[in-house]
C-alpha cells in the first residue's frame, strides 16, 4: 500500500464530491431536491479505500458548505451526510447488498437527516409534510446514483487497486 497514492486518491474523491454538490446546487428544484451524485465518491471510497477516508469526505464536504454557505446549511449538510454514511456503512458491512440498495437507503437517510435538522433549527414540525415527497425523491435519486455506482466501480477498480 502506497500512502501518498492513497492520500492523492482521497483528495481527488473529496474534490469530486464538493464539485458535484456545487454543480448540483445550481439545479432549481423545490425543497432543494438533488440527484445526489456527490454520494458516489463517498460510496466508492467506502468500498474501495476505507471507512475513515469515506467519513472524512462526508465531514470535509460539510466544512466546505460551512465556508461557502454558512452555519444553517452546514448543520443540514452534516446531519444528512452523517446519517446517510451510518446507514450505508451498516448495509455495506452487514449485508451483501449491491450499491443500488446502499445508495437508495443512503439517499433516504440523507433526506430524513436533513428533515430532522430542519425541524430542530426551525423549532417547527411543518417540514414533516414533505416526508412523502422526500421518500419518493430519495428512492429515485438513490436508484440513479446506485446504478451509476454499479457501472462505475468495475471500471475504476484497476485504478484504485494500487491503494490496497
Amino acid at each position: 500500500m502506497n500512502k501518498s497514492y492513497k492520500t492523492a486518491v482521497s483528495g481527488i474523491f473529496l474534490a469530486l464530491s464538493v464539485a458535484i454538490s456545487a454543480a448540483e446546487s445550481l439545479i432549481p428544484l423545490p425543497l432543494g431536491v438533488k440527484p445526489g451524485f456527490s454520494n458516489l465518491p463517498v460510496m466508492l471510497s467506502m468500498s474501495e479505500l476505507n471507512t475513515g477516508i469515506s467519513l472524512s469526505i462526508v465531514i470535509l464536504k460539510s466544512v466546505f458548505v460551512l465556508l461557502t454557505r454558512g452555519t444553517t446549511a452546514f448543520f443540514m449538510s452534516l446531519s444528512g451526510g452523517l446519517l446517510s454514511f451510518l446507514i450505508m456503512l451498516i448495509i455495506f458491512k452487514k449485508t451483501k447488498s449491491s450499491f443500488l440498495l446502499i445508495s437508495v437507503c443512503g439517499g433516504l437517510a440523507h433526506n430524513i437527516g436533513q428533515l430532522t435538522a430542519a425541524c430542530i433549527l426551525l423549532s417547527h414540525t411543518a417540514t414533516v409534510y414533505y416526508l412523502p415527497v422526500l421518500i419518493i425523491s430519495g428512492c429515485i435519486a438513490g436508484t440513479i446514483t446506485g446504478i451509476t455506482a454499479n457501472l462505475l466501480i468495475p471500471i475504476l477498480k484497476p485504478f484504485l487497486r494500487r491503494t490496497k
Partner: protein
Amino acid sequence: MRRKVSVRELIIIAVILLFGVTAFILLSFKKNGRTALIYVDGKPVTEIELKQEQNKTFTVSDAENIIFEVNNGKVRVVSSDCPDKVCCNTGFISKSGESIICMPNKMIVEIKD
C-alpha cells in the same frame, strides 16, 4: 468484489417507493386552507386571510428581504435574499398543512384551516 443487484433489493425499493407514493396521494386530497401563518425564527409573525386578497405582494418584519405574493387563495415567495432559493422554487401553496420553508432566513409559511 462485485455486488449483484438481487430481486429482493428491487422489492425492498419498490415497497419504500410505494409507501411514499401512497402517502403523497393521501396528502394531495387535503382541502384548501383558509389562512397562511408566517413564522420567523420559530415565532408566528403574521397571519394572512388567503381568500380576501387578490394579487397582493407584501413583506413581514424580521424578514424584510423576502417578498410574498397572495393570489386566489394561494401564496408564494416571489423573491428572497437567500443563496439556495428553495423557498422561491417551491412555488404557490394552497392546501392545508403545506408549507414554504426558507432555511437561511429561518422562515416558514404554513397553510392553516
